[in-house]
């Protein structure tokens, strides 16, 4: 591990931000707490995706598959077979990790280019959604309603919105930590090489297959863990939300707008855009049908055109300018 990793861990800004986020449930009204919880879910998803999309440079559109496995499989194991949701979460994560590794193997075996990789991963996501919709065990089209939360932690119940906020915050921090750890480890070095030039990486002896499989599996496991927690938070495993390829598009958008080349891009992207989207819905949703979507879309277009590298690098430049 590079010393920079421990430098970031020692940063007072990081710890202040964590403490500030952790105390939010103590004073935030329930609507805004829900918004913050959603933001954490998407921060986690965006960081998980960033391992493949940002660090390895492969635009994966398969990530709704992993979220779907985490949400639908863990819920189905609980409701159909009575398997504790903690255990279900781990089983689903294992299945997601294996699915991720298989997708990475297919990519390597058939030497897929960027466009083919995006399309193949999208096909995996579509197949995943179709399987969920067509298989009653996983809830089919009507989804799965989870039992009412009674605050029993052993049964994966966190006793209300504050509990879910803290658990999802833990998962988002885990996803951020994994990103930072990979960035500052030999795996990150190899993934950057693969992103820079796969042919050259192979020529210098980087084990491209192993590193790609590892990156995809780690990313899939993280998505799956957050997917399980998200479904439990919503108390409803909705296939049209949690297994839909639209979810991946949202994740890719948030990570990209935040800045895929930056360690804090997914945090900035999801941390800002999810609350903004929710606020726009709150303020403009009832004025004119679709107006909030229009404004949100317009905002995204402006950001993409004005800041093609993403928000985080722009904030970082601003910070440097002011600190100088």
């Amino acid at each position, binding site marked *: 591990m590079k010393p920079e990793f421990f430098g970031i861990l020692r940063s007072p800004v990081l710890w202040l931000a964590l403490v500030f986020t952790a105390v939010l449930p103590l004073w935030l009204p329930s609507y805004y707490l829900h918004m913050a919880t959603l933001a954490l879910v998407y921060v986690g998803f965006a960081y998980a995706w960033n391992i493949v999309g940002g660090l390895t440079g492969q635009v994966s559109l398969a990530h709704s598959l992993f979220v779907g496995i985490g949400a639908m499989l863990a819920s189905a194991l609980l409701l159909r077979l009575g398997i504790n949701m903690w255990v279900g979460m781990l089983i689903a994560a294992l299945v997601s990790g294996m699915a991720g590794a298989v997708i990475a193997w297919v990519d390597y075996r058939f030497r897929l280019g960027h466009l083919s990789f995006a399309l193949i991963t999208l096909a995996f996501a579509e197949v995943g959604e179709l399987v969920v919709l067509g298989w009653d065990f996983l809830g089919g089209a009507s989804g799965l309603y989870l039992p009412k939360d009674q605050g029993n932690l052993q049964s994966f119940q966190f006793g209300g919105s504050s509990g879910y906020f803290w658990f999802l915050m833990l998962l988002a921090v885990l996803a951020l930590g994994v990103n930072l750890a990979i960035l500052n480890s030999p795996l990150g070095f190899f993934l950057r090489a693969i992103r*820079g*030039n796969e042919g*050259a990486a*192979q*020529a210098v*002896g*980087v084990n*491209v*297959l192993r590193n790609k499989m590892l990156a995809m599996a780690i990313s899939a496991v993280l998505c799956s863990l957050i997917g399980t927690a998200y479904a439990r938070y919503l108390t409803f495993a909705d296939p049209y939300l949690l297994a839909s390829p639209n979810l991946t598009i949202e994740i890719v958008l948030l990570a990209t707008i935040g800045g895929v080349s930056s360690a804090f891009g997914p945090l900035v992207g999801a941390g800002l855009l999810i609350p903004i989207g929710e606020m726009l819905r709150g303020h403009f949703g009832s004025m004119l049908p679709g107006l909030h979507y229009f404004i949100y879309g317009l905002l995204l277009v402006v950001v993409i055109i004005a800041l093609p590298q993403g928000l985080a690098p722009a904030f970082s430049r601003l910070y440097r300018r002011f600190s100088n």
Partner: protein
Amino acid sequence: MIEIESLVAGYGQVPVLHDVSLKVAQGELVGLLGANNAGKSTLINCLSGTVRPRQGRIRFKGEDITNLAPHKIVDLGMIQVPEGRLVFPQMSIRDNLMLGGISARARKQRRQRLEQVLETFPRLQERLDQHAGTLSGGEQQMLAIGRGMMAGAEVLMLDEPSLGLSPLFVQYIFETIAKMHRMGLTILLVEQNSSLTFRHASRCYVLEQGRVAIDGPTEVVRNHPATRKAYLGM
């Protein structure tokens, strides 16, 4: 050191190499010549494991490496410097060089080798923390060769090192190749620049449409009527 027997390879349905056999002895500098699409790069890619042959055998120091993964071939000490340099543009020159020394056999001597590379290519020393993408074509070629040196190569397979470089840089790169050869490195040089290859190689192979058309000591290949016609316009 390297023995290729009756190699057949291609991409998808398109055959490129037909029954190619070739040998490189330890300490030799062997030239592999041929026009565009003759199959030179495919042959070198088969040697480095990035293209899987359909038939035939490749042996390195007596060991069959025909279907070995590319990183395992690097571990054995067969290093390819790919055509078009292929550096990592967003990484610093230092990181590019360090990546050259990631194999198990090279890791222990990375620092020493880095010094050697920087001694061989002082221009890289001045720009160690600069992004590789900002280097000129010639400097990128130095970096690509330096990366190969970092791997502690026993055999260096250079794919068109003169491609797209100014005559001055070509001269410099070939002098460096000759120097590495004098230091005992085995080199397989894939080139279109026949005059420079003839000057440095002890033996040559000429590929034509995926087959070995001519092979032998450099003098024999150079004076072969077909070579003179194809390369020297005589």
